C-alpha cells in the first residue's frame, strides 16, 4: 500500500459530508457521480480506484458502472498527471492562427509530446479540441485557467515559471508519481492501430483484410445494405479489439515497471 492509499480512508471521511451535500442536490443519487469524482480528483490529483469504489458505495452502483462512466470523460484522469496540465487548443481557428508553432515550442521546451508527462512529473502536456476562445487564438489552458493570445516566444517563460514554482496558477494536488502517459487506451481505440482493429494493416476501407475480417467501413456498407446477417461479423472484431487493448496495457505496464513507476 502506498502513502496515498494509506491516507485514503481519512480523506474519504473528510470529504463525505461534501459528497452528501452534492448527492442531496439531485433527485437521483447517480447524478452526483461526476461531481464526486471531480471532488476526489481535486484532492488526489486523479481518479483513484479507491475513489471510484467509494463513489460506487455512496451512490449504490457497481464499481464497473463507475469506471465505465469515468472512462468516457477526458477531464477525469484515471492515472496520475503532472502538477500542471498544459492543454493547447488544436481547434481549427487556433490552427490557422499559429497553434502548431506554439505546440512545437512546448514539445521542445518540455521534451514530451501529446498525452505525455515530463519525467519529473511536473507537466502533463496535451493538445485538445476547441476551447471556445477562438477570438484569442492561440489559446490554451493551464490547470483549466485560460491562457490567451499565446505565441511561441511565451512558452519558455511559462515553463520556466512552472519549474521554479513562480507560475501564476496553483499546482494540482499530486499524491502519486505520474507515469509516461495518463491516457488509457479506450475500448476500440487501440494505441498502435488507431480506433478500429479492422483497419490495422490496410490502407483503404475498400481493401478487406486487416486484422479484422471486415474493415469497418465495408462492414458498415454491408450492414446498411444487407441488414442483420452481417451483424455477426462485429463479434469477431470485438474479440480482436479486446485482445489488442490487453496487449497494449501489458506492454505499457512492462515499460512502466522498467522505468520504475
Amino acid at each position, binding site marked *: 500500500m502506498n502513502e496515498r492509499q494509506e491516507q485514503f480512508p481519512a480523506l474519504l471521511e473528510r470529504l463525505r459530508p461534501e459528497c452528501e451535500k452534492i448527492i442531496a442536490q439531485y433527485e437521483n443519487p447517480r447524478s452526483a457521480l461526476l461531481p464526486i469524482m471531480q471532488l476526489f480528483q481535486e484532492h488526489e490529483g486523479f481518479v483513484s480506484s479507491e475513489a471510484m469504489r467509494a463513489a460506487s458505495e455512496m451512490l449504490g452502483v457497481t464499481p464497473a458502472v463507475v469506471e465505465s462512466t469515468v472512462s468516457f470523460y477526458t477531464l477525469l484522469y484515471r492515472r496520475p498527471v503532472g502538477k500542471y496540465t498544459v492543454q493547447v487548443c488544436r481547434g481549427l*481557428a487556433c490552427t490557422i492562427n499559429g497553434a502548431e508553432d506554439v505546440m512545437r515550442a512546448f514539445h521542445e521546451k518540455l521534451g514530451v509530446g501529446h498525452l505525455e508527462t515530463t519525467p519529473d512529473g511536473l507537466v502533463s502536456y496535451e493538445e485538445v479540441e476547441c476551447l471556445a476562445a477562438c477570438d484569442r487564438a492561440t489559446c490554451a489552458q493551464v490547470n483549466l485557467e485560460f491562457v490567451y493570445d499565446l505565441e511561441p516566444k511565451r512558452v519558455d517563460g511559462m515553463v520556466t515559471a512552472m519549474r521554479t514554482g513562480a507560475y501564476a496558477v496553483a499546482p494540482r494536488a499530486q499524491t502519486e508519481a505520474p507515469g509516461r502517459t495518463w491516457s488509457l487506451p479506450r475500448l476500440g481505440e487501440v494505441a498502435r492501430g488507431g480506433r478500429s482493429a479492422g483497419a490495422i494493416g490496410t490502407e483503404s476501407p475498400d481493401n478487406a483484410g486487416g486484422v479484422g475480417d471486415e474493415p469497418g467501413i465495408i462492414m458498415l456498407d454491408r450492414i446498411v445494405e444487407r441488414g442483420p446477417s452481417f451483424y455477426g461479423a462485429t463479434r469477431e472484431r470485438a474479440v480482436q479489439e479486446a485482445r489488442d487493448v490487453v496487449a497494449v496495457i501489458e506492454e505499457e505496464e512492462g515499460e512502466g515497471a522498467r522505468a520504475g513507476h
Partner: protein
Amino acid sequence: MPVTKVLTEGIGEVDLRSIEVYRKRGGYEQWKRALSSLKPEEVMEYADKSGLRGRGGAGFPTGKKWSFLPKNGKPRYLVCNSDEAEPGTFKDRMLIENVPHLVLEGMLLGAYGIGSHHAFIYIRGEFKDGYQVFARALDEARAAGFVGKNILSSGYDLEVTVHRGAGAYICGEETALLNSLEGKRGEPRLKPPFPAVEGLYGMPTVVNNVETLAYLVPVLARGWEWFAGAGTERSKGFKIVSVSGHVQRPGNYEVPLGTPVRELLDLAGGLRPGRTLKAIQPGGGSSACIFEEQLDLPYDYESLAKAGTMLGSGAVVVFDDTTDFVKAAYNLVRFFSHESCGQCTPCREGGHWLERVLERFVDGRGLRGDLDMMHRVSATITGINLCPLGDSIEPFLKSVLNRFPEQFEARIA
C-alpha cells in the same frame, strides 16, 4: 453599421457579475413581474410569439419546444445547455462569464414558463472560470430571495443546480447531456421519446441553450413585438455571432438576424492587409463553407439553409488565401472522429477512416481513388446515426473537396 447591444449591453463597461450592478440596470425585474403578475402560460406566449429560435445549433422554435411537454402532472425540468464546444463558437462562455445573472434570470423565467421547480445548468468542464462566476451569481440570487422556496412570497418554489461537465463534445447534444447529468456516459439516446416527453429522470424536460434563455429577459422587458420586429420573417430577433479565423478583430458581434455576411466580416475588421478571401464557415465546425460570391447572403436560418449550409451555433470562421484546406479538412474530421461516442458504427468507423485517409493527404501520400472514396464514405455515414455528430463530418469536407480539388490532388503521391 453599428453592432446591436441586447445581451451584450454593458459587457466590458460595467461589472454585471455583481447582483447590485445587474439590479440597478433593471435586473430581476422581469422575474419579479412574472411571479407577481404573469401566469406561466403568459411567459410561454412571450417565448412563442417572439419567434425566438434555439441559439445552440438546431434553431428549433423555443415556444414550440415548450409546447411539446405533456400535461400529465409529472415533475418537469428545465436544463440550460452551457456545454458550448462547437468549433469556432465562444458566445455562451462570454455570457456566463460576464452576465451570469442575465443567464440565471432567463433560466428562472424559462422554468416558470414550463412550470418547472428544478432547473439545471450544465456547464462545460473546461469552463472553470465560467462555473465559478455562475455559482457565485447563483449564491447571490439565492441570498436575495430569487431562488429557493416560496420565492418573494409568491408561493412558487424553484431550485437551481449547477452541474459541471467533464470533457466530452457530444454532451452538447441534448440527450447525451441528459445522460451525463444523470451520471452516465454521455451517449445520445434513441429518439423518440424526445426529452419533452421523457427527459431527465424520465420526466418531461426542456433543454435550451444559454443564449436562448438569456433572450427571454429582454423579450419580457421590451415585448415580443419588439423582438419579432427585428430580423427576418422566419428568423426573428438577434443573434450573437462569434467571428474568428483570418480577420483583424475576431470577437462576438450581436446583430439582427438577416445581416449580410459581408457586414459581419466588416464588423470583425475584415481580412488582414493584402489577403484575399477563400472561404467562410458560417455555422460552426459542422457547417459547409460559403464563398466570396455569396457574401451578400443574409445571415439567417433560411438563407443559409437554402445556400446548402446552416447558421448552426453562429460561429463564423474566415479563411484567407494562406489556408491549407487539406489540413483544415483533416483538422475537423479528426475532431469529429475524436469526439464520436462510438455507439453508432457509421460515425465511429467512418469518421476514423476519413481521418486516416486525410492524414496521409496531409503527409503528401494520398492515393488515387481516395477523393472519390472520401465523397462516398462521408455520404454513407450521413443520416444513419442516433445523433447529428456523424452527419457533421460531411458538409465542410465536401465543400472544400469540391471547391479546392487542386489542393487535394497536389497531395496524391
